[in-house]
């Protein structure tokens, strides 16, 4: 984005391309993806398989060694993510750039108390005593609006609800005070009332801190209200990028097709229009 000065740009991605090779076949998962992330909430939307999570994972270099990630630019702050050593990456991952996964049920360690997992995230990057890490974790639990941090600290992941689990994940990812958070479908495992709460917490964190949020989601309605800009992906390519407020006036037939496939409380229709995919979208 032109109005952002270089210092505000936290992430710069230009012409990102990700290939997976398995059994001799090469699968081009992402191609020609470019964007900048400043102190803002940028959404990547698209269907499953459109490559949105693959983009998020490339930024943290979470892909297996068989994946080929290339780009003209893949820069975080002033670090080139493509040439960074694994040791450098360890200093970035979870410390300066962290990732909130979709489902707390699968991403929390089932046999460790949730509070200890949050403290562990802090200890991994800071040389402090366990007692101090615990205090920070308790403090962080309070920040994500958990009412009784002392009690929740002692719980195991199976003992907390989905919404609480997701807030615990957020606490774990924010405790190191990162500059960029990649949130991969953070609310799609939650129901409407809890979703609101989790989004409010994310909103609070972004406004309080110097934080860029990359919000990966398939929910167009949600990103329209929650994010600043939206990047629409289909089959590994960016279809269009537009301000979230203009999403309803999107031009691209793919975006429009997704929008109109949503059922609505206020405008009932007897049949929902089904998205028709145009092969031309892939050549432009």
């Amino acid at each position, binding site marked *: 984005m032109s109005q952002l000065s270089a210092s505000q740009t936290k992430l710069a991605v230009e012409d990102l391309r990700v290939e997976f090779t398995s059994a001799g076949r090469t699968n081009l998962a992402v191609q020609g993806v470019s964007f900048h992330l400043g102190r803002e909430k940028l959404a990547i939307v698209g*269907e*499953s398989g459109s490559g949105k999570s693959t983009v998020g994972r490339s930024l943290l270099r979470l892909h297996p060694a068989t994946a080929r990630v290339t780009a003209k630019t893949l820069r975080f702050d002033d670090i080139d993510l493509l040439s960074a050593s694994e040791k450098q990456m360890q200093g970035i991952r979870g410390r300066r750039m962290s990732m909130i996964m979709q489902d707390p049920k699968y991403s929390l360690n089932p046999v460790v108390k949730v509070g200890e997992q949050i403290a562990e995230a802090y200890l991994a990057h800071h040389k402090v005593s366990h007692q101090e890490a615990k205090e920070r974790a308790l403090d962080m639990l309070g920040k994500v609006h958990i009412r009784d941090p002392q009690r929740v600290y002692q719980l195991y992941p199976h003992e907390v*609800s*989905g*919404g609480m689990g997701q807030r615990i994940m957020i606490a774990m990812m924010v405790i190191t005070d990162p500059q960029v958070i990649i949130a991969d479908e953070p609310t799609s495992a*939650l*129901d*409407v*009332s*809890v*979703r*609101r709460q989790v989004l409010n917490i994310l909103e609070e964190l972004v406004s309080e801190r110097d934080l860029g949020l990359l919000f990966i989601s*398939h*929910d*167009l*309605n*949600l990103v*329209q*209200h929650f994010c600043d800009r939206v990047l629409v992906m289909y089959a590994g390519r960016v279809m269009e990028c537009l301000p979230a407020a203009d999403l*309803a*006036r999107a031009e691209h*037939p*793919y975006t*429009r*097709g*997704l*929008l*109109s*496939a*949503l*059922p*609505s*409380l*206020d*405008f*009932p*229709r*007897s*049949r*929902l*229009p*089904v*998205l*028709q995919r*145009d092969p031309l979208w892939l050549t432009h």
Partner: protein
Amino acid sequence: MAMIEVQSLNLSFGTGPALNQVLHDVNLQVEQGQAFGLVGESGSGKTTVLRCLAGQYQHWNGALQVNGQQVQRKLDAAHYRTVQMVFQDPYASLHPRHTIDSALKEPLAIHRIGDRDDRVCEILRKVGLNDSFRFRYPHQLSGGQRQRVAIARALILEPRVLLLDEPTSALDVSVQAEILNLLADLRREQGLTYLMVTHDLAVVAHLCERVAVMQGGKIVEILDTGELARHEAQHAYTRLLVQASRDMNTHNIEQPSACLAL
């Protein structure tokens, strides 16, 4: 005639001080051919009601009737010929090492029904798939195709009632539209009765005529989905849900025509 009747259904887990009552006097009636939605947040007990009807819990109190028959604690095969369930996650509800063919034949084998090959082909066509899917494994199918198979597996016993537990919440919006259209078509063609659990009010408004709103194991309100859209909900919690859903919803777009097929 009411197809499903639930009268003062109570259910609790644990004993003594750990006693946790999850359903409090739940009453509802679903007419023959009706689509009835159950909404509420996680933990409100909506899926638990379905599970009692599906026989996954046996220690409930109250009276359950399906198709005029009392639902017993131990369910017989006849009950399952009438009532089938479709689960939320098509990735988890199909056996990864069974082909679609054997997944669909299993209920037929359990109920000792013949003509299995013909029935499998027919049901696949009904849910918009074809014979070429028969000998594939679930991992070779997309999420939407898997959910079609899950619906086919429920329908192969020709039930009268489908219990739908968040049938589209694991799917993309574009695929959700396909599955909702399929469910609407199947209901019309076969006169099915649906009891659907969901947290998405827009989905309920689209598919169902009536909806019960649950909170903390109680039904707080039962109303027509038309009333929901017309702001006629009485209970504060229902209004909250409607508001939460509206906040996320915008349909100020005109219907694009070029790229859509109806």
